[in-house]
């Protein structure tokens, strides 16, 4: 089942990170959600969502090495934790079971 403590935007963010290879910058996550759902997530709510996920231990922040150019900064990057991966699996499994055949109709 979808874990009750996981909001929609949080689940979307986790999924986006997984799509992006398990590790992503904030902007990439928000763009991914936009691309797939059409939903525009603001910098602020993206930030707040990631913060909540980190609080729950589903992601952790890592620091990328600075970009190799003048003024290049270290960037903060969200990475799925094993708990995060498990949460995706649990949530999507129950979702998939609930959808059953409906999935084919509703997803063009």
């Amino acid at each position, binding site marked *: 089942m979808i874990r009750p403590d996981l909001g929609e935007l949080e689940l979307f963010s986790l999924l986006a990170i997984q799509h992006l290879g398990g590790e992503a910058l*904030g902007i990439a996550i928000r763009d991914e959600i936009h691309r797939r759902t059409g939903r525009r997530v603001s*910098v602020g709510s993206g*930030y707040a969502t990631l913060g909540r996920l980190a609080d729950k231990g589903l992601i952790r922040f890592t620091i990328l090495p600075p970009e190799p150019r003048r003024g290049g*900064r270290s960037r*903060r990057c969200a990475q799925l934790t094993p708990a995060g991966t498990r949460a995706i699996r649990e949530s999507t499994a129950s979702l998939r079971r609930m959808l059953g055949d409906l999935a084919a109709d509703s997803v063009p």
Partner: protein
Amino acid sequence: MSESPRVPRWAEVLFRLAAPAADVDALLDELSDEIARDIARSGERAAHARLVLEVLRSLIPILTRRAVLTMRTPRPPRTMANRFEILRSDLSYAMRQLRRAPAFTLTVLLAFALGIGANATLFGIVDDLLLRPPAHVHAPKEIVTLAAGTVTEGFEQRSLNYPVFAAIRARNRGFSEVAAAAPVRVPFGRGDHAANLDGLLVSASYFPLLGVAPEIGRFFRDDEDVAPIGAPVAVISHTFWQRQFSGSPAALGATLQLGDRRFTVIGIAPRDFTGLDYTAPDVWLPISSGGAMQFLGKQWTTQSIVTWLRIYARRRAGVPLADAANDAMRLAREAAPDAFFTQSGWSFQARPIMAARGEEHGASVTIAVLLGTMSLIVLLIACANVANLLLARGLRRRREIAVRLALGVSRRRLVEQLLTESVLLAALGGVVAILVAGVGGALVRRLLLGGLALTTGMLDVRTTVFTLALALLVGVFTGIVPALQASRARVYSTITGGGERGGTRRTRGQSALLAVQAALSFVLLLGAGLFGRSLVAIDALRMGVDIDRVLVGSMNLRSIGRPASEADAVFARALEEVTASPGVASAAISATVPFGPTYGTEVGVMGMDSVRHYSAVYNVVTPNYFRTLGTSLLAGRDFSDADRQDTRRVVIIDQKLATRAWAHENPVGRCVRIRADSLPCATVIGVVESVRRQSIFEDSTSFVYLPLTQARSWIAERYIVARAATNPRMVAETVRHAMQTAAPALPFADVHLVKDQPIVLHERLPFRLGATLLGVFGILALLLAAVGVYGVISYDVGQRTREIGLRMAFGARAADVMSLVMRDALRMVAVGGVIGSGVALAGGHLVQPLLYDTSPRDPAVVLGVAFMLLIVATVACLVPAGRAMTVDINAALRAE
């Protein structure tokens, strides 16, 4: 990937304000990514338009997140001990920082000490004069003093008389207790050991009214204060007890020779008790025992024309003051129907003494406001100055701060730390300020407030608390902006941007602060200049008497029960002694003196067919009176020893009367009749310059002078006037001694300069006060501004060493470098000066009433001040400019 675009300043500020400190950088980075993406997709303009929406949409989630974090974060247990530990480490860190830059620390301390000290000084004085209740007095707010007057003219008549007091005391319904008091000079002892004591005649109800208990002994009983002659008992002050009796209890029962009676000491007032005034008298006597010491003679209980007694009362609960005052006036009308202050239209005002005290001692509210404004301006200048220094220091420490930020110190902690530093500085400044206030307060009191020996110590608790609170406030006030600015350091660019060596050029804030300082200094200096000019104008007033050189000596003969007829013999001997004394250029006897009591008469001038009358005041004098005063003889001759009782009657008139009576004709040789037309005619033998009578600002009155030999009985009073050839204050003592020697059996002779007569002192005080204080504050402000300019320019030069080196390598001459350095600073000072003169010109009408014969827009003063400010700023720039000119080109370039 191209360099990420910069986040606009407004967006950065919003994010910094909204986001948790730890996440600000990440958020800004992401916002920057967002902008870059939008620019790539839809161009710069569209991207920035979208940014507004993006930021606004972001704020609520960010704030929510912050709230959640704040509520949830397991705060580092900020227990008391923990907090104290943090404070202690901040303090020791701040101490180390301050010790490492002693010049900076000293400059800031100096600025704070002066700025805060000026305010502490003023607070102490205002507190003493206006705020603090008199010591040992029970419920002082309930005590009022009665003043008579009219609603339109004000209530200025504070001295009343005995019949009025007696009636109010006996029959009033509005007060619970009524008392009366009158200051009096009490002759103490005889001859060479004679002295004058400050006495206060009081009704027996005075001490009970105040609710004070004696240190030892007792106060007066009602049956000791019975008119017309009360018991010879005295209460002495704590100070007098210590001085005269070394604090021995044996003082009780001792006798004092006061005037012509021996008084028994029955009580000693508690220490610091000053009654309702600022200074304690030496001795308190029942009114009825000392009434005759006044000039009223035996009729003191009944006469109602002369006013000499203050009336105090304690409010009765529930009775409105106005009703009580009206009731008192009703009684006063019955008791003294012929007194001028009971005429119709006049009424009493019952004024709480807490309000009345300040007004009466030259410490009027105007002066207090003026002083307050000035010291506040000085404080502002000091703050601007310190803020400037802290800003410069913050810029210099950017690198250190960036490193600390990079190491994970939170910005909040950093601000706390920097604030600790400025507050510590201010607190240290406050401590020095308390010392400044101690010395400054004593000076101001002595120089300007006529030596009011205020009872409270200089370093009392209230002033100390005020000062430290002010210091704290000032510390936060001056530290907050520099601390915020420093903590805003961009970590990365500051650490990596080695080219700038962690430094930046002076900020716009610093330039603005410089201009503000210059403007404020300008205002203060202008004020000082205007008051100074007024004082010069007053000193240049021709008063007909050299107030700085002429001494006036008097003796209270009646107080020791000698008949006035004896006075002439005594004074003739005294005149001989005084004339023969060293340092005395000339001396004379007169019946009154300038700014002393005045006596009016009628002068009849024989016309062609009628007698015209002129009112004039007159004086009775010996030869040399005019020479002694410095009054010029305009025509004719002075009196001489040849003018005797049996020779032709002669008078000398002043210019004013000469012009009024004879216009352009020569009055010498004319005949006038003084007092009554029936008296024999007196010949005018001379015309003298007009002399001021009651005010240094008055239009002079017509004067007639009569020779003492021909008018002995006209006025009973006698004065000795003497002209000092050397230091007047020293000669005063010589004259006093000479007078005392001439009459060993007589009481204390009072000798003082005309300049020190109460009227003259009182009239010159506001100008002296204004000129001196504004002068001192103006110079303080100028010093502070100079320090500010120096500090900023000096810092600037340090930062620009490389640039200056480069310029010189490319052939800039020393003069170019100098103008480069000075141009900016002088421009700021000039801008400040223009603003300051604008403010001063606009507000000039506010000080106009305080000035004498001086326009608040006096061009000479304005230009002079502008010039002075510019000179000082230039001098302050010269040192750093000199350093800039001698920059070692090689060293500067190699440092690159």
